[in-house]
């Protein structure tokens, strides 16, 4: 990484630049120490090129960032600036975080590779927390090789780069075409199926699967944990600055405060059961192929899009990677999401490298044009 400048999401503490967490409440906030992941980056010879835009508190409100492919569309969130900077060719790599869908979804919306390693493999110390059970660091790059390089450096896992440069044998892939809580948009399902066919034609074994009946409400388990913990992580700032926090964020945090501890504990237990169940469910496969989002990036900035296609893998802490696969009718990127069970990050990168070659997107840069709107 020697001499390479990396973008760092603005909820990650940096001693050389402010960290303002996407909100004017923290204007001028200047950490005195680097977060652990920034220290790892520096140790590997890299440096912080700039701080990238985040939604406020890495949560719901859109920031200033526009989608480099179509500036009237959201880049996704919450790691909006990290995804857009890499897509626009401003940087070759950036760091973000995911609590629900904040790496995989913006990567898909911006047509780049978004890699969320297994929960806990990248040190979250010095990163503004939202949900300690779910918060995970991740990377944005234009190739799987670069994902192995950057994430491997941050995790001190050199075998991730080896895996990313050594594509697997033709993989056995479970094909999960949708998540029941996030219906696919018209056209997106067909595009995902076309990607699955492309992989099968290239030699992969693609087995259609559906989400087991017992886990069709897994998104509710995730929501209980995320909002219970988020409400408590942000309790002091909400109490002091409620009027400066958006209505949707206040409402979500209020919902989190109202969750009974018993329900939270039950959700944590359900999460453990989900981890055990899905580890076994994935065992016959090298990975699961699923949508990274319900479609291309939505127009406008009222929201950063539906994160639901990322929720299950964030709940169980499995590694997930978004790969670009094509463009929709509006010229916006569409992609695929690959997942493996916890700790299988190297294997996932090898499978992703194989799929990247089969999908044939390459390392494209968005043709940034001024916003006509």
């Amino acid at each position, binding site marked *: 990484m020697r001499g390479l400048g990396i973008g760092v999401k603005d909820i990650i503490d940096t001693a050389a630049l402010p960290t303002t967490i996407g909100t004017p409440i923290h204007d001028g906030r200047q950490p005195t120490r680097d977060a652990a992941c920034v220290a790892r980056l520096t140790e590997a010879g890299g440096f912080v090129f700039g701080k990238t835009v985040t939604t406020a508190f890495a949560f719901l409100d859109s920031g*200033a960032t526009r989608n480099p492919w179509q500036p009237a569309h959201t880049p996704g969130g919450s790691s909006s600036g990290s995804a857009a*900077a890499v897509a626009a060719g401003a940087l070759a790599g950036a760091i973000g975080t995911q609590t629900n869908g904040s790496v995989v979804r913006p990567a898909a919306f911006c047509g780049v590779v978004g890699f969320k390693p297994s929960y806990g493999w990248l040190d979250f110390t010095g990163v503004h927390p939202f949900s300690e059970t779910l918060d995970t660091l991740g990377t944005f790059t234009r190739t799987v090789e670069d994902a192995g390089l950057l994430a491997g450096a941050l995790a001190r896992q050199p075998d991730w780069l080896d895996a990313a440069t050594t594509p697997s044998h033709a993989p056995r892939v479970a094909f999960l075409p949708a998540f029941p809580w996030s219906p696919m948009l018209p056209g997106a399902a067909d595009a995902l199926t076309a990607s699955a066919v492309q992989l099968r034609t290239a030699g992969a074994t693609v087995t259609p699967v559906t989400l087991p009946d017992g886990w069709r409400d897994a998104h509710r388990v995730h929501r209980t944990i995320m909002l219970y913990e988020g409400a408590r992580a942000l309790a002091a700032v909400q109490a002091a600055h409620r009027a400066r926090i958006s209505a949707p964020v206040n409402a979500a945090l209020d919902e989190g405060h109202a969750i009974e501890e018993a329900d939270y504990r039950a959700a944590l237990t359900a999460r453990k059961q989900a981890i055990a169940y899905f580890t076994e469910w994935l065992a016959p496969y090298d990975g699961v192929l699923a949508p990274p989002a319900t479609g291309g990036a939505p127009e406008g900035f009222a929201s950063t899009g539906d994160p639901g296609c990322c929720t299950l893998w964030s709940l169980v802490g499995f590694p997930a990677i978004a790969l670009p696969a094509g463009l929709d009718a509006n010229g916006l990127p569409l992609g695929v999401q690959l997942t493996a069970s916890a700790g299988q990050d190297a294997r996932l990168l090898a499978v992703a490298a194989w799929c990247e070659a089969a999908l044939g997107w390459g390392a494209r840069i968005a043709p940034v044009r001024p916003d006509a709107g």
Partner: protein
Amino acid sequence: MSMSISDCTGEALAALTLADAIRARDAGRTARALAEAALQRIEEVEPTVQAFAHL
């Protein structure tokens, strides 16, 4: 991506992947040249994309 790493300049340098940037560095390009190319690309796209909070 394939390009002649030792020859590329400006926009082409900015378009390098991390792995290509390492190869460019190993071929004699300086970290400063890589950073200047990135800054030039940022100047071009940042008014539209607004990806950075602090530079």
